[in-house]
């Protein structure tokens, strides 16, 4: 008889959380968090780092409503982990809005001048290129979660003590 398998993804509404069981260590060394839990407690479009590797971060972003426009200094990649997000791309008339050497992305005032590049409607599991030289805006009618691959920038929020396991035994959710 063919075996039936169920693949378990997480969501804002439903996620299980594992954790660290310490034998001889400090749980903080593993910087353990859950991106759905982080997003469930975040403000819309707050860029909360859930991973950091020197200059690089991955950010858990709660997508809800319409975001401001941002422009990255390098390619970024948005992976939708929950919900549906429309991503609007615009080729900047003035690439100088992002200073050379900037890391991550910068917030832009209003709608920047530029040519419309296109729109991506992304759902769970869909990854979208946010190309350098463009500006982007997210629009999510219902709360969702984006995992963003980028560099730590001025608007990256780091609150590790609030989001990570600090005790030697995990607290099963």
């Amino acid at each position, binding site marked *: 008889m063919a075996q039936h398998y169920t693949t*378990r993804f997480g969501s804002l509404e439903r996620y299980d959380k*594992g*954790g660290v069981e310490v034998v001889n260590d400090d749980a*903080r060394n593993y910087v353990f968090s859950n991106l759905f839990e982080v997003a469930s407690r975040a403000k819309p479009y707050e860029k909360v780092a859930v991973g950091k590797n*020197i200059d*690089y971060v*991955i950010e858990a972003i709660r997508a809800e409503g319409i975001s401001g426009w941002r422009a990255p200094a390098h390619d970024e990649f948005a992976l939708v982990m929950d919900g549906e997000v429309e*991503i609007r791309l615009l080729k900047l008339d003035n690439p100088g809005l992002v200073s050379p050497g900037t890391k991550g992305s910068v917030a832009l005032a209003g709608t920047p001048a530029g040519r419309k590049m296109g729109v991506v409607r992304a759902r769970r599991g869909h*990854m979208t*290129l946010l190309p350098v030289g463009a500006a982007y805006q997210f629009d999510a009618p219902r709360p969702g979660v984006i995992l963003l691959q980028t560099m730590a920038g001025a608007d990256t929020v780091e609150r590790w003590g609030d989001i990570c396991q600090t005790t030697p035994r995990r607290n099963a959710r």
Partner: protein
Amino acid sequence: MSKTTDAVPEIGSIEPNQHGYRSFTLGAFRFDRDEYFTHVAWPKGHHMLPVDAFLRALQRDIAWGFFYGIVNFDAVIGTMNHYGSVDLFAGRFNDHYRRAGLDHSERFTTPLIQRVFEAMLDDWTNAGFDPFASPQETGSAFGPKHGSNKEAITRHRVTAKRMIAAPGDEPLRTDDNGFPVNRHFHDVPQDKPDVRAEPGFEDEVVAFNLFAYLSRSDVTWNPSIVSVCKASLYCPTTEEYILPVIHGNDRVEWFVQLSDEIQWEVEDRDTGAVRARVTMKAGDVAAMPADIRHRGFSPKRSMLLVWENASPELPALYASGKMPPTPVQF
């Protein structure tokens, strides 16, 4: 440490042994196989590994170009990457072997050890055995030599330059190009993102379904690059059963569990002393510090995002203590 060896006159014995397999030497190391086991000998000792486990580890060590840091085949045998040369060791990262003075290590140029390992994998992999496949999806590695499986052991390794499906980059996986949905992922939606590019921007407005892409992976425990932000590499992989190596870090790496569950056994990188067990469920994020080694267990095929920083200066920074082994302090 002996000086780096870069030449040997012959790769493997010419005549096969009674089981049909050739033997191989690398410096003072000798490798033989019989119907069930790989035998490794060095001047101060010898060791046996089940040959299926050995070939699974060997396959990944080769495919990953010796990876980041240390690839322990088990608690005794392994390799350490110096990015241009590679240490082959026995007991080097085993506290008991070290204390007893039974450990041994030799350094080889990467092309040399790669060539010998590839020849060994080719000769010792029988028809029907796929070292990259999960145990339920492959035939047996055991028995006297029968045939080969070159197609399985020389797969293309996915290394996107920008992002999967971007123009000129790595293609999507489809039924038509030989990647059907895996038996554990039949419930994973195969929908595509709606992409509407304005004329002239077709090459920059790009998106793809990563979860569908992963659901069609035909290998396990094989991180492949799907997106590149300078030195930040997303290397997702699908995992089932046990990671065939114990990976010793030379830098911090991060895991994001995309689906299902993996449990990680974490040990001290140098001694093997147990430090922690990390259980990861969908949405969990965890760092693997630069001074540990880890092995994963995945009861059901799962999707894991391995996130690496490929900056070449990192091993020296961590080894010198200029960089703390954990990524953030709080």
